[in-house]
């Protein structure tokens, strides 16, 4: 990927109807479209030892995007994972709340994607449609921007599409100076926790295995069912007085319920990203000893589950100056 490359995306109204007019062109640090095609393999006795041609079987497409969260375009990506957000006014800005517990998985909108490599002439590009984001992750570390990675799965590719002209998304990026984590243990008072980084990875477990959804007479999947939801939150505890507590939580037989609010808030514009985990349990908190490294943090991994009190799982809220993502 060089700076001249770009990706674009647009929401589709329905499965099977690609949209050639893009909505957003979210800047990426890298992207990698791939074709996932099975090959029909049948070994036969041929009288010699040389391989025969193999015919392609069912195909679908994958695309991995990675980039900084740009406040205008990122919600469009997130809507292909969590479903459409609930949008409303928040002061002079607009709030977009993604809550997967309120979304029928069948209503998560399919998207059309363009991925252009402009260095060669003519450009190389892939136009994929009927695409959803299978896993969506977000991370912020010291001295980094708030970044995301989206693993797309697409049913179809249009070889006859035209390459659209790019529209640069120059909306704001948030960075580590804007980021905070707030924690509540077992329903207690929420308090800020000193952390070195925060992140999450959410999955829809899309069913793209042709063995489960393929049909005779077609080389393509005709649906992309959304599977079980899952989410892992990660954060690096830096507060020396709490390292021992967080280390020991990974060994509890009656694990503490941890509620997390991981935020990035711009102090001037008030643009915001907030990821809430309503309840999670630590699953990993390694604290290795080392003769050369000082232990100044523990990387916590925690598995989210649906909170029985609120009925919520996770929510992602973005506050920006875009009215809606309908």
């Amino acid at each position, binding site marked *: 990927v060089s700076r001249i490359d770009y990706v674009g995306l647009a929401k589709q109204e329905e499965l099977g109807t690609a949209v050639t007019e893009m909505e957003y062109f979210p800047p990426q640090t890298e992207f990698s479209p791939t074709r996932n095609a099975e090959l029909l393999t049948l070994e036969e006795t041929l009288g010699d030892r040389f391989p025969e041609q193999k015919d392609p079987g069912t195909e679908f497409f994958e695309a991995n995007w990675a980039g900084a969260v740009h406040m205008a375009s990122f919600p469009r990506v997130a809507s292909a994972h969590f479903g459409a957000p609930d949008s409303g006014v928040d002061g002079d800005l607009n709030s977009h709340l993604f809550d997967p517990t309120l979304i029928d998985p069948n209503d998560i909108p399919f998207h059309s994607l363009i991925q252009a490599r402009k260095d060669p002439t003519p450009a190389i590009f892939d136009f994929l449609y009927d695409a959803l984001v299978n896993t969506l992750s977000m991370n912020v570390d010291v001295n980094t921007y708030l970044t995301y990675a989206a693993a797309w799965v697409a049913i179809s590719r249009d070889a006859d599409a035209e390459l659209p*002209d790019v529209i640069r998304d120059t*909306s704001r990026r948030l960075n580590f100076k804007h980021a905070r984590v707030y924690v509540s243990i077992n329903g207690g008072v929420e308090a800020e926790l000193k952390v070195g980084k925060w992140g999450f990875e959410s999955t829809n477990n899309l069913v793209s295995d042709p063995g489960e959804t393929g049909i005779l007479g077609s*080389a393509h999947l005709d649906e992309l069912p959304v599977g079980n939801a899952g989410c892992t939150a990660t954060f690096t505890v830096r507060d020396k007085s709490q390292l021992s507590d967080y280390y020991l939580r990974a060994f509890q037989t009656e694990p503490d319920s941890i509620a997390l609010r991981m935020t990035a808030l711009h102090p001037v514009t008030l643009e915001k990203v907030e990821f809430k985990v309503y309840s999670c349990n630590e699953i990993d908190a390694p604290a290795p000893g080392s003769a050369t490294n000082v232990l100044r943090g523990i990387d916590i991994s925690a598995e989210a589950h649906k909170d029985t009190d609120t009925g919520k799982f996770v929510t992602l809220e973005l506050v920006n100056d875009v009215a809606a993502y309908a």
Partner: protein
Amino acid sequence: VTTVTVKYTGPPGQQVPLLAAHGHAGVCRPDETYELPEDVAERLARSSRWFRVMPAASTAAAAPKRRRSRKAPASPSAPEPAAEDVQAGDEEDTEP
């Protein structure tokens, strides 16, 4: 060169290199309009949902609908245009 008016209906914070090449540098503002050569306007409208070619006053009633979508082909080897793909004015989408 025939020029037409193009209206930007998208979100703030978007910048269009194609517009910059025609003297409109900077970030697009919602509801801003631009006078552009017809072929450039067509390219923009084909590329982005946020640009609409404004109909000339005398032909407003017969103005083409700019939104375009492509139906999935029945099979990859035999693309078949769907009826709703053929809209008034779609022939203007052909590259000059």
